[in-house]
Structures are given as C-alpha cells and as structure tokens.
C-alpha cells in the first residue's frame, strides 16, 4: 500500500532557532494522525510546511497525486500546488475567520471552492452548498447570512463545510476546536469524526488537547522543542507514555 503523504526529514529554522527538525512519517489513506505538544513545540510550523504555507529549509513532502503518483509538493510548480490545495487538500484554521471570507454569505463561502475549480451553474452550486451546510448542521435559511452573524461553533462548522465540498483526500487541521466551549467542542468533534469516517478522509490534526486526539486520531506524534519525541498508536502513547515529556503531558490533563 502506498502512503498518501510521505514526509521526509522536514526542517524549518527561524534564523538560529529551530522551528522543527528531522520530522519524517508516512500517512496512509483513511488514516488520521494527531500531532500534540506544548505551545512553541513546532507543531504549527510543521503543519504549515506540509500544507505549503511555509517554505521548509530542507526535506521532502511527497503526496500521492491523482495523475502523477508520488510528487514532492515542495518542488512542484506553484499553479499545481495551488490547484492541489483547493481540490485534494483542505486546511481548517484554528480561527474560523482566517479560513472564511467574512464579507461573503455562508453559501458563497461553501461555493467558492466549487467556482474555483470551474463550476458555473448557479443552481447546482447552491444545491451543493445547501447539502453541505446540512451536513454540518447549519440551517438552510441561514445560508445567505454572512459568517459574522454566526456563533464561533457555527463559523468553525462552516469552515469545515467550505473545505470539504470539493471532496479532498487530505485535511490539515490546526487546533480545530481551540477557542470553543466544551459542549460545542463535543458536537464539532462528533461531526468531524462522522465526516472523516464517512468520506474516508486522511487528516493531520495539530492540537494541544489530548481529548481531541483520543477521539479522532489513529496515530499520534508528540513534539517538543521542534523534535518528534514519541510516535505510536494513540491509545498506546496516551496510556503508556515512554518519553518523560509525554508522561508530563498526559499527567497534566485535569480529571473532572
């Protein structure tokens, strides 16, 4: 089985300081991978390097494209990479307003990716937007409202709908539940878990919330100071942490 995404020795430094270094892993189709670690451990740097938002200083990010097989996304041409990022890839930002067009209605936000890949039939675009808003539990009668009229949880769900409408194969998520209260978080996680299973998505989820990865991720990567300190199956890492930092992380979670 070929991996969907293969990361090899990715390194990013900010001047003399290390963003992340020596990161290598394979992600297989349908697999959800969690990246956890404290603030400043390099998780977001790594995610942005993989998603093409930041140019890494070294390494390879190979993606199994539909037409050409495994291709290094760092050396592919920019039009091709941008095409990839609005078809096969999706990126869910921590703050919904980074990933949404706040001045454009919810329906327009969902339709944007469809129009970006060439949809030119208003009725069909709208139909698909209604369908996707329904899947993320946003009422049809809210579809012409701007996202600024939505609650934080709704904005986040809208962002997810907007990203998944073109049927991507790989989703990057940067703290998708950050800043949401626990009950909204629970609903969002439920929704995400349903969508990921239903669509057979592969996903990379960056978070500092261990509950999120426990629920969503098959595999886990623990980062500290730009290095990967431990990897393994989620339950294995969380229930039997080996590295001192992982032990600290797991024991830091408050029990209610």
């Amino acid at each position, binding site marked *: 089985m070929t991996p969907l995404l293969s990361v090899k020795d990715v390194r990013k430094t900010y001047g003399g300081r290390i963003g992340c270094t020596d990161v290598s892993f394979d992600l297989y189709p349908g697999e959800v991978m969690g990246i956890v670690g404290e603030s400043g451990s390099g998780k977001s740097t790594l995610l942005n390097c993989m998603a093409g938002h930041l140019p890494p200083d070294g390494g390879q990010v190979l993606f199994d494209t539909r037409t050409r097989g495994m291709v290094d996304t760092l050396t592919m041409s920019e039009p091709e990479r941008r095409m990839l990022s609005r078809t096969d890839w999706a990126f869910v930002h921590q703050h919904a307003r980074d990933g949404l*067009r706040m001045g454009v209605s919810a329906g327009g936000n969902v339709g944007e990716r469809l129009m970006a890949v060439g949809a030119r039939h208003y009725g069909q675009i709208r139909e698909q937007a209604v369908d996707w808003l329904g899947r993320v539990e946003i009422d049809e009668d809210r579809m012409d409202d701007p996202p600024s009229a939505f609650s934080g949880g709704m904005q986040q769900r809208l962002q997810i709908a907007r990203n998944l409408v073109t049927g991507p194969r790989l989703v990057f998520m940067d703290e998708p539940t950050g800043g949401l209260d626990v009950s909204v978080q629970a609903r969002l996680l439920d929704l995400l878990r349903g969508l990921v299973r239903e669509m057979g998505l592969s996903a990379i989820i960056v978070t500092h919330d261990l509950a999120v990865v426990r629920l969503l991720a098959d595999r886990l990567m623990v980062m500290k100071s730009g290095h990967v300190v431990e990897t393994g199956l989620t339950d294995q890492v969380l229930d039997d942490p080996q590295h001192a930092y992982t032990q600290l992380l797991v024991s830091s979670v408050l029990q209610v």
Partner: protein
Amino acid sequence: MSDYNFAYLDEQTKRMIRRAILKGIAVPGYQVPFASREMPMPYGWGTGGVQVSAACLMPEDTLKVIDQGADDTTNAVSIRKFFEKTAGIAVTEKTRAATVIQTRHRIPEEPLAEGQILVYQVPIPEPLRFLEPRETETRKMHALEEYGLMHVKLYEDIAKHGHIATSYAYPVKVEGRYVMDPSPIPKFDNPKMDMAAIQLFGAGREQRIYAVPPYTKVVSLDFEDHPFDPSKAEHPCDLCGAEHTYLDEVIVDDDGGRMFVCSDTDYCAERQALGHRGRLSPPETLAEEAAQ
C-alpha cells in the same frame, strides 16, 4: 502654446507611457504598471486617461472628450480645454469626426471605426480588489488564471437580489485569458467592447495601463443559468425616441415627473437633427420657428 511641450507631458514621459501602452496591447487585459505623473487635476478626475491621451495625441489628431456620454459636463469640458491649450489640437463633439476619444463611464452609441482610439478613465483597475485586498495575491491570481473568486461576487448578487445586480464595472474576460475591469461603464456597453477601435485604459492613482486591441473577444462573466443581460431603462428617449440607447433618468419637477434621455448627447442631437422625435420634444412648428 510654446509654454508647454506638446500635450503637456515631456517626451521622455510620453515614451514611457507609450511603452506601457504597447505592452498592454500585446497582452490584452493585462494591467501594466507605469510611472504615473502628477497632473494638474485631482486624482479621480481622469489623470490616468489624460496621460494616456497625451501619449497618443499627434498634432493632426481630433479629440473628443465625454463624461457619462455628455460632451458638456465639467470633467469633459475641462479636459477638452486642457488639450486645446497644451496641444493646440482640433476638438470635436462628433464621435465620427474624432480620432482620439477620451471617455468617462460610457462608450459612444455610434460604432467606432478602425483608426480611432478610445481612452477610458479608470478609478480602480483591479476587478478583484474588493474580494481580495492584497495586491500581491491578486497579481498571482491573474498570473495563474484563478478567477473563481470573481464568480463568488456574482453568486452573492444572485443570492441577495435574485439576479446579477452588478450594473456597472461589470467584469469581462478578454480573449479567454485575463479578467478585466472595463472601468465603470454601464453593463449595457459591455457588448460594444468587441470593436474595431483600439481601447486603452488609464488609471492614474493606481498607476496601471491596460488595453484591448481591435477585434478582441470580450466576454462578460455570468452563470449558465443566469446569463449576462445588458440591461437599460425600459423607455424610449424622450427627446429623440431612440429605443436602443442607454438612457439617463432626469427628475423634472417636484411631483415625481421624470424624463429619460440618451446619455450620449452627440448621438441624441444628431438623431433630433434628422427629425427623430420623442415624447417631450417640442412640437414640430415650434422647433422650426426656433430654427429660423
């Protein structure tokens, strides 16, 4: 006259502008940056158009300037005077007689011919500006032909108003490549952009020049199920009776009285001279007396 270099700008500046114009014509719809000069008029009054006109004018040219279709509005009068004074060229109000026509917000009703140049004044050359504020990003989008966002604007129109409510500065695709802002002309004029004359666009404040060469395909963007509609007021002209021209609505009294007249004053006057009459034209006898 000898106080000014011909057509106000110095020769080096005109050379620089001409190079930008040539590049614009070579790449239809592409916005060419140029070093826009300070002109003796405020930004927004046609500083870009004036510079392009100045670079195009030759001593034997005849200039026509229109503002919203009219030859006698402030903007048109002052620009026409400006070139009369600084270039000493012939000016006209007749579309057919002009070799260079500078326009703000309209294309003349009379079809333009080969050998004529139509210069547009452009306030904002970037069609994607209000959708994507970053110029670095919009330039990349033009380069990579990523124009999905333009349709998001049209989608929003239909979602809000039930039809494409954009009625001026309606985005067009030039020769199947660049999406271009046709300057704030009414969308009624968009189909006329497939023309025999050279069309040049100058944006002074934004420092951009772009062009549409003769006989270039200009397509207004739309959706398959909401096709482009070059709408106009559903009235005939009240002075010349024309039913196929773009009309201005004029309020004539305090009781809701209104009239519709051709916005192209030259075209309307010519039709009236040929004997065409509208709803509010003076009775024939009066007109004849006035003529005598």
